[in-house]
């Protein structure tokens, strides 16, 4: 406090991140130390006092938004587990990164759910995949794997069923490539170990009671299910995983009182493939096409977040050229086009959910097709774009969007690229948005279905780490493109869409405004592309290396994706020359974290509204389950 350079108490929440760290080290001298590992930042908090300090960070310093909480296993490099938290201010600015460490054997860290409810699912994930017990967590259950799963897969010494080697590229592919089929290495072969005391019968138990009991619903399932004293005041209803309205294999277990929902528990993991473990086996470059498969509606945005994170790390080294201006402009264009795709899709399918079956969505998909055609001609694929590279891109725009006939009955198209883009951005997309508004915004049925339904208050939205349109629909004008800008967004002119009501309709309106803002951005990109025509997308004129080595350190790359904040926490544990494979690769998935408030958003509404509420959050299971 009386330290020079520190702001007076009442302005603590307006300090810079450095000042905030200095304040913490001063105030909690015995609990807070600087993280001075090479390439790292932030502070390490002694885990006993974590909750206390976290509260000070939230209330005193004003870092009210917990963006990401994840764990890292430093096996062989200190042999501890570490929780890493990234907290931001909803008023904007950089991250306050703080960490807590614990022993690998008896891994325990106090839960921060009492400070940020948004830590709920993320801590469950860390327990599930890393095996850290969070003391004081209200419902510490596995979240992506099933109860009864043996081990914690993200630990460095855990091996998957088809384990080959710790890191790619695998040795046996070249020069003596012994081809084999993956199934030949049977899952139930020698690769799998069962714990000695396992009761395989229990895993087979699919009785009603067993199915619901592990969910921690706070309901006495036995009582409800009991045939003799059958009570109908409260029922447990299971929606999913195979349900047309859950947008994929996703399950919700509701308890209902009549038609009214009294509690809701999302159950996920049906599409879990341990993306992060795969990512840690991969080289840095290998991960780019894998990110496409997260939120497969907007793969360009996924690429962007990841390359930003790795570029941050690369910039710590000596040989790093930042992307050229043309490259940045192209990236922003692609990302904004995928935002349009994403929102058209989100609105369309949300309408399906609330009953406007497929007419609107087909009108929007028609526009989406054009954008995907463009992606296909530029990046090579409609959805799995795999377009961005570290410091560059896969390729510049082709002069013409031209197809070549190859199969029987092929029909050929051929457009001038810039003309196609100009027409699309200036005419088609705005026309579709106008049409969308004419069709929906004043539609009385839509308004009655969605106004006042699925309300998330401003305070809850922040506290539950909601992101994207869900957060902005609750009156928080937080858009990473403005709050913590990256790429060329600072020089672009656009507004952050925000609505105060916090209901489904507000989220819809936020998405519509964002569509318009994206068009506004795209219109500014076009002249920039024309001005830079002919310039290279690579700073040194030639494509990057196929096996880049990345310097030691940590990085958190975050972008405002269609669904919300998409963050990549990447740790490189290389020695002198850097590493070829990430030590830790974590995805802060908006679709996953946005489900944290699903329970409170649904309470008190009718069963029929639940699908609509889920649709208004806009999730993609590829990203939720990872």
């Amino acid at each position: 406090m009386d330290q020079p350079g520190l702001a007076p108490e009442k302005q603590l929440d307006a300090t810079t991140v450095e000042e905030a760290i200095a304040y913490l080290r001063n105030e909690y001298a015995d609990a807070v130390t600087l993280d001075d590992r090479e390439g790292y930042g932030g502070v390490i908090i002694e885990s006993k006092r974590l909750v206390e300090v976290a509260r000070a960070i939230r209330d005193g310093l004003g870092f009210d938004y917990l963006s990401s909480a994840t764990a890292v296993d430093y096996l062989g490099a200190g042999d501890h587990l570490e929780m890493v938290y990234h907290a931001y201010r909803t008023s904007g600015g950089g991250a306050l990164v703080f960490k807590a460490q614990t022993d690998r054997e008896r891994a325990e860290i106090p839960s921060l759910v009492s400070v940020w409810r948004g830590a709920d699912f993320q801590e469950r994930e860390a327990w599930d995949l890393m095996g850290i017990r969070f003391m004081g967590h209200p419902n510490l259950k596995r979240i992506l794997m099933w109860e009864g799963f043996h081990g914690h897969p993200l630990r460095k010494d855990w091996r998957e069923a088809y384990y080959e080697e710790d890191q790619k590229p695998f040795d046996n592919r070249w020069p003596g490539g012994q081809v084999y089929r993956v199934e030949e290495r049977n899952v139930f072969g020698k690769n799998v170990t069962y714990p000695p005391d396992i009761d395989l019968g229990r895993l087979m138990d699919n009785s009603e009671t067993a199915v619901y009991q592990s969910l921690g619903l706070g309901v006495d399932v036995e009582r409800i299910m009991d045939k003799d004293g059958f009570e109908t005041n409260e029922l447990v209803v299971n929606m999913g995983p195979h349900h047309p309205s859950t947008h994929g294999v996703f399950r919700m277990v509701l308890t209902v009182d009549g038609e009214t929902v009294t509690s809701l528990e999302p159950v996920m993991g049906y599409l879990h493939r341990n993306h992060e473990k795969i990512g840690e086996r991969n080289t840095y470059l290998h991960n780019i096409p894998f990110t496409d498969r997260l939120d497969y509606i907007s793969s360009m945005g996924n690429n962007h977040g990841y390359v930003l994170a790795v570029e941050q790390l690369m910039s710590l080294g000596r040989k790093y050229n930042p992307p050229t201006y043309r490259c940045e402009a192209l990236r922003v264009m692609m990302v904004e086009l995928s935002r349009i795709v994403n929102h058209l899709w989100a609105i369309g399918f949300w309408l399906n959910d609330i009953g406007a079956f497929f007419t609107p969505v087909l009108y929007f998909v028609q526009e989406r097709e054009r954008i995907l055609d463009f992606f296909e001609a530029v990046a090579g694929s409609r959805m799995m774009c795999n377009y961005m590279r570290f410091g560059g891109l896969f390729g510049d725009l082709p002069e013409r969007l031209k197809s070549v006939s190859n199969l029987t009955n092929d029909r050929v198209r051929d457009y001038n690229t810039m003309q196609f883009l100009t027409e699309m951005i200036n005419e088609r997309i705005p026309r579709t948005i106008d049409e969308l508004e004419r069709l929906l915004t004043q539609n009385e049925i839509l308004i009655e279905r969605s106004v006042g339904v699925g309300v998330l208050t401003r305070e809850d939205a922040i506290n539950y780490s909601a992101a994207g349109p869900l957060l902005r629909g609750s009156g928080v004008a937080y858009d990473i493109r403005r709050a913590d800008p990256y790429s060329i967004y600072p020089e672009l002119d656009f507004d952050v869409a925000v609505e105060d009501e916090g209901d489904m309709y507000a989220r819809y309106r936020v998405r519509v405004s964002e569509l318009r803002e994206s068009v506004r951005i795209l219109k500014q990109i076009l002249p920039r592309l024309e001005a830079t025509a002919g310039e290279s997308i690579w700073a040194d004129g030639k494509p990057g290396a196929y096996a880049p080595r990345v310097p030691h350190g940590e990085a958190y790359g975050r972008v405002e994706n269609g669904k919300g904040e998409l963050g990549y926490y990447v740790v490189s544990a290389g020695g002198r020359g850097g590493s070829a494979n990430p030590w830790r690769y974590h995805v802060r998935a908006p679709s996953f974290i946005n489900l944290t408030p699903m329970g409170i958003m649904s309470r008190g509404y009718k069963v029929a509204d639940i699908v609509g509420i889920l649709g208004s959050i806009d999730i993609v299971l590829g990203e939720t389950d990872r």
Partner: protein
Amino acid sequence: MYGTGLAKGLLLTLRHFVDSYVDDIRYGFRKYHHSTDNFAIRQGTKTKGVITVQYPDEKVAVPERFRFVPFLIVEDEDHPTRSGKDWCTSCGICAKVCPPQCIWIVRGNDPNTGRPVPEPEAFFIDIDICMNCGFCAEYCPFDAIKMDHDYELASYDRTTHHIHDKERLSKPNSYWRSIAPTRAYEEMLVRGTWEHIDVAKEARRGAARSRPAAPPPAPQAEDAATAVASEVASPAEASAAPAPTAEGATPWTEDDAKREERRRKALERKARRAAKRGQ
């Protein structure tokens, strides 16, 4: 007034319905005729009507950059000196850069000297695992592996059809030039010749020894381009693959029987190795 929003929306759907016919009439039903221009109109930015395609009676031809399961380039049959020769030098970069690791390559050995030859003995891609990312094609320094456009790969039995071997993977160079003319041209500019980069190197070496050597078929911008080409040809990895042996003794001039023999031996060796590993 209550209901106006609804009515407006219904009118809009009606307009969509009508548009789909108006468009047809405006273009005099040309939209459905099988010529390039008409299809571009129908799918173009100006169309308001129906843009759907009646697969498989009509297929949308894919753009040049479209990527599907890779193939290997071999020299055309009518090539004067290198007919049927692989472009691949077995450098292994594609196998390393492949994210799901679905490429297996057996590097060939010269039966006499025992030295590796710049040609793969066997090459497999498991197309069930291939994620069509295109990295192999992007990072191959010899332009030897390319992404295909043929997406109609359905088969009845994946266990027998989905590991593509070298024979299945190989397609002539002229095929690549026909499905992606622009890109083939761009690659030629970088290499400095329409020929394989080794041919260009050989020619340069010949020229350096001031022997009369036939110049490569005149590409534009040759000087600048060959400078780039030499850069591309010598990444660290490529140097691991040895340069072709002295002229005249290049492995691909031997006759088919010998070649077949070599292939058989290699497969035997491979089987022995596999058996050993299995024990």
